């Protein structure tokens, strides 16, 4: 589908249990699918997220949840000041979050800029930790499709297992949905076996209706994951946004049979917040999503807090932050 000669209306695409992923050939079809989605009442969604935040996770459930959360972390560094040395220590931490305790799982992945992928790949040899690269002119996405695709190819050539792309929020907000969709499809088409995470940057989409539509757009375009944020704008992941995206993933799975993951990123620093997200996952999409294959945290300082909580559970006392390495 191209962006210039699209018809503006299309046949209604059937959505319903077991209908499979619909083929979207025209912008009209895409619009008609997105228009058929129910609206989101922001007050009700906020209230639901707030209520789920009151769940109290104790004892064995908490133990399991902390380890699960560690295994879901995409340990992230996305700074202009990143160096090979920094990436090396990040990779060491990713493999073995606390060298004193081998029972602690590795994190899911490290997440960095494409030029650092090769180095990380090397450092993670022999581990289960994936290498994720932010590509497509991250974080703004303000570049031509050719440049975005070149960015993705760079990362793939260097050995990236996962690509975190950004959507063109400007195009989405001005209604050029076909263009946004085409970019997702184009990136997906060169990803091969690499998993594609599509970053919606919900802080710029603002409304929950937009979040729901963008989630569907990305999933229809082939996303393996939909991700909240780049972490580079004022508002990152929120429980309410996660709730709406998980509802979308649940409904998409029910309608097409395809399970798409959700990644929350930006501003998640405390174990308590991570556990709250897991509760939202559990009670919205369901326990099938409680795996690193289908839920991730994009974070850096969160990992140490998860380790500290884990240690505190065992020792029964609060622990110093300096118990854990700073990376």
């Amino acid at each position: 589908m191209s962006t210039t000669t699209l018809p503006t209306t299309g046949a209604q695409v059937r959505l319903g249990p077991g209908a499979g992923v619909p083929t979207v050939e025209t912008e009209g079809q895409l619009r008609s699918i997105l228009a058929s989605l129910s609206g989101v009442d922001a007050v009700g969604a906020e209230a639901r997220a707030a209520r789920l935040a009151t769940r109290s996770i104790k004892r064995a459930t908490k133990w399991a949840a902390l380890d699960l959360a560690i295994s879901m972390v995409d340990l992230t560094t996305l700074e202009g000041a990143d160096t090979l040395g920094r990436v090396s220590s990040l990779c060491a931490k990713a493999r073995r979050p606390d060298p004193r305790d081998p029972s602690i799982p590795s994190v899911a992945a490290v997440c960095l800029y494409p030029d650092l992928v090769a180095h990380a790949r090397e450092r993670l040899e022999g581990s289960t930790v994936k290498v994720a690269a932010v590509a497509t002119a991250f974080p703004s996405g303000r570049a031509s499709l050719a440049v975005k695709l070149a960015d993705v190819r760079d990362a793939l050539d260097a050995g990236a297992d996962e690509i975190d792309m950004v959507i063109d929020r400007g195009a989405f907000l001005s209604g050029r949905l076909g263009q946004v969709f085409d970019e997702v499809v184009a990136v997906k088409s060169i990803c091969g076996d690499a998993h594609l995470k599509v970053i919606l940057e919900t802080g710029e989409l603002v409304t929950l209706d937009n979040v729901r539509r963008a989630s569907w757009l990305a999933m229809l375009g082939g996303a393996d994951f939909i991700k909240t944020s780049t972490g580079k704008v004022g508002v990152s992941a929120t429980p309410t946004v996660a709730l709406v995206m998980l509802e979308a993933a649940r409904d998409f799975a029910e309608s097409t049979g395809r399970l798409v993951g959700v990644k929350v990123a930006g501003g998640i620093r405390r174990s308590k917040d991570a556990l709250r997200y897991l509760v939202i996952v559990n009670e919205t999409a369901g326990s099938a999503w409680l795996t690193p294959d289908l839920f991730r945290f994009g974070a850096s300082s969160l990992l140490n807090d998860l380790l500290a909580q884990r240690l505190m559970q065992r020792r029964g006392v609060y622990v110093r932050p300096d118990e854990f390495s700073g990376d």
Partner: protein
Amino acid sequence: MSSRPLANSELGWLAYDPAPESASLARLAPSYGLFINGTFTDPGAHEQVPTLNPATEATLATVAHAVDEDVDRAVRAARHAYDTVWSVTSGAERAKYLFRIARLIQERSRELAVVETLDNGKPIRESRDVDIPLAAAHFFYYAGWADKLDHAGYGANPRPLGVAGQIIPWNFPLLMAAWKLAPALAAGNTCVLKPAETTPLSALILAEILQQAELPPGVVNIVTGDGATGAALVEHPGVDKIAFTGSTEVGRAIQARLAGRGTHLTLELGGKGANIVFDDAPIDEMIEGIIDGIFFNQGHVCCAGSRLLVQETVADEVLRRLERRVEQLRVGDPLDKNTDVGAINSRAQLTRIEELVAAGESEGATRYSSSCALPEQGYWFAPTVFTDVSQTHRIAREEIFGPVLSVLTFRTPEEAVSKANNTTYGLACGVWSEKGSRTLWVAERLRAGVIWANTYNRFDPTSPFGGVRESGFGREGGRQGLAAYLDV
């Protein structure tokens, strides 16, 4: 990626581990007297009646059963306090007492939440997040009115009625006490409050709070007991006003008894609320709203959305999602912070629910109940949804006052309105649609005292609550709530 999903059993996710609030926070006495003229009477001077924890059937404490003479003493104390103290206390000073009470409720909120949950069976999440904060908020709100009655729209210097007799139900024990006492005291009345037979404890803690607030003796008197105690209060010639919340049956009897007297009366009675779902409703929030509408407080809510009217075009999808959501509800220990649905308040109420549900089945409606496990001890009923319900079925007409939803369908807005109004009640309704114009059109035509749009079971001290037709008359909350306690 190679990691496998962790099974639910490994994580214990579906159940979560128990996270119980501590029952010892309740600090209950073994037995209680009556609160008359600022002090508690000797418990030994009265017949003592046990009050049970409906989740375990264990006795929490025993309370006094007030007889006619006790009610008489309480009314006399209220009259004396009215004549000598409260009627000559300025609005500004009354306000400060009410602010104190509000603050004390906030300070003791955790204890009150535990007491409420123990005595009533409602989930601690609700008593902690709804009942107790709203009770405090009511005192705050009416505190502000006490010295502003001139601005309430009833003319200059409106006068109180005198002694108010207030009879409250067991479904929101402390909150109903606050709804009754706060406006009455703000307006300048003195009160005799009769808590429900099965849930007297939070009102007795409130009595302690009134002592801590140094409210003058006799301004509020609290007499525990049963229907006979309530009847004695209604019959008492020294009472100027009766405010009753409870069943339509009892409300009807009270109105008949007072028919020949000048006693002022407000009634907040039963309901059979319709929750109307249009096909353009925000679906996920609407499902939550239906759940809140009927399973909040085990459905022991007079304004519960106990009839779901759903547009036929979306009925299948709504029911599919509703069933999935009902399965998720956690039913069990009310003190557990993760419990969504607690215990039925009493054996008698459980029997009534069971009887009406049996009638639903025998009349041909299709029953679905959550597959959740129910505790062995105590009074429990699994969240239940009836489909294929017709307007003539008892479960579509009678108030069940339990976690039971009856689903009906409609095709047009007119049909929705006509079905919603086809009841002798008129307390509350819900409307779900993203089309504001139609929501308002429907709202204008619903015969109900409260209409919620895209939400349900919302309460606020600034918002008047109350019914029309056989749901009663008079309003609680808001500027309008003052009228129930002013001679206007």
